[in-house]
């Protein structure tokens, strides 16, 4: 019995040492080594990933649906009344004559203007229109600039996002609307809503010690002076379409 077992064992060993078997086993090792290695490396990467690359938070954020930009209905009646008042009183003629007519005419929202005789110099006023938004630059000399902008498009935000800030909004004499005033790295900025349009007045000073930028006092004066309105052809057409008497 024992001799038979020994014979079988010898036969198995002989078979195992056959060149074909040796080559086959070798091939198997060659094939399996990279496959196992790849698997282990993937496992290692998966374990290290949270430490070196925190992609998940941003990926999650990107899946959050972005709200559609809204264009609140412009209060054309109120804007048209201001526009007409400036024409009748001839307070806006001087500055309007300096603005490029094509830019003015393609602007589809009321453009706020500083009252004549106010704090702002308008001799070098420049206007850039984007249709539903505009930007007007007013150099004031000595490296001080005012940039007035209007934007009829806005990203809607949840209830409370803006209204909760009302308590920190500035109340400026002669200005009906609450005004958000912030110090920036190079000056001050004020933002408010009029005619359902977002308006911004930015003050920048080349020199941080310029009197205009020491406090928000100068910018408050600028905002208080934004009493006039001009409307180009596109805005007038939109106002008429909305029923304004122009």
């Amino acid at each position, binding site marked *: 019995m024992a001799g038979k077992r020994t014979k079988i064992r010898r036969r198995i060993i002989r078979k195992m040492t056959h060149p074909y078997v040796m080559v086959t086993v070798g091939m198997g090792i060659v094939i399996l080594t990279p496959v196992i290695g790849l698997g282990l490396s993937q496992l290692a990467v998966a374990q290290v990933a949270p430490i070196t690359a*925190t992609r998940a938070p941003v990926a999650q954020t*990107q899946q959050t649906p*972005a709200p559609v930009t809204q264009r609140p209905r412009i209060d054309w009646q109120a804007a048209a009344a201001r526009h007409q008042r400036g024409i009748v009183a001839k307070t806006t003629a001087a500055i309007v004559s300096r603005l490029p007519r094509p830019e003015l005419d393609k602007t589809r929202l009321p453009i706020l203007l500083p009252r004549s005789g106010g704090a702002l110099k308008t001799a070098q006023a420049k206007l850039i229109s984007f249709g539903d938004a505009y*930007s007007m630059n007013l150099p004031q000399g000595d490296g001080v600039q005012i940039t007035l902008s209007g934007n009829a498009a806005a*990203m809607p935000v949840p209830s409370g996002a803006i209204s909760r800030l009302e308590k920190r909004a500035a109340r400026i004499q002669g200005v009906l609307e609450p005004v*958000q005033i912030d110090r920036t790295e*190079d000056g001050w900025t004020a933002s408010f*809503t009029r005619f359902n349009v977002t308006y911004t007045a930015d003050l920048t000073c*080349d020199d941080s*010690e310029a009197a205009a930028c020491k406090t928000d006092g100068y910018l408050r004066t600028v905002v208080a002076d934004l009493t006039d309105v001009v409307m180009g052809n596109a805005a007038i057409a939109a106002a008429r379409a909305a029923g304004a008497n122009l």
Partner: protein
Amino acid sequence: MIRMLFAVAVIGFAAISLWACDSPPEPAPVPEVGTETETASEAASEIAHETSSEVASSGAAPFPYDPPTQLIAGSGPSYTNTKNWAPGICFPLADTPSYANSQVWKPGGYERPDNPSQCAPENYAYPWQDNFCETRTGTNMMCKTGTKGHQGQDIRPKTCKTNTYWAVAAEDGVVTNVASMTVAITGKSSPYRIYRYLHMQSSTLKVAYGDHVVRGQKLGLVSNNLGLKNGVQQYTTIHMHFEVRVAQAETLPDGTVLSANTFVPPYVALVDAYERKLGGDCQTIE
């Protein structure tokens, strides 16, 4: 039997070799830019990009960064809104790598008197760190406290060399302000974001007020320009302070619209833009 096994092994080896050679590398994840629930026309205009197909066709390469809102411990109130406020923008620096981190709370910053070297290796290394709403003198309604906080994101260029690396336009738009240390670009499409670039070298600016720029176009060299104080040039660390402003509106129950043009956190948009940049998006334009 043994011959059969041998033949199977040889065929298997050949098959695996062929598969390994033909199998394409795993595609880099493409950011989900433009997949928001918007109407098609809205999406086309709101993505800060003229050709969204460019975004989709270019790959994205992950890199190490800390999550948005995770500021250096104790550096400020941080914020909660992690929306991508400027999807599809071009990364505002032409060269990679670039390093988003705090220029105040890292070596060389005024909150790090223990290590005065702005060129310390840790400033020029991953991971990126958010620093929107870091404690600063400027006010910022997006911060948790709703009061003071950093209004943008600091980004260091490739190396600690001033006046060497270009800042580029994030979106097609028009230059609407140029001041001693600031260039502002208003995007030409809704929602007409305002991008503000601070601290570029004034003398080498490639743009002027009123210039129309395209996404990726060179604006100026990243520098340490902090403007003037009593007529004397001031300096900060070598970095780009990058801001994004967006008009936001809340409609009250009675129909009244309250809106504000606010600074928004740029970090999420920058991570997305940088991944695309590493994947080949946004070629630099002279």
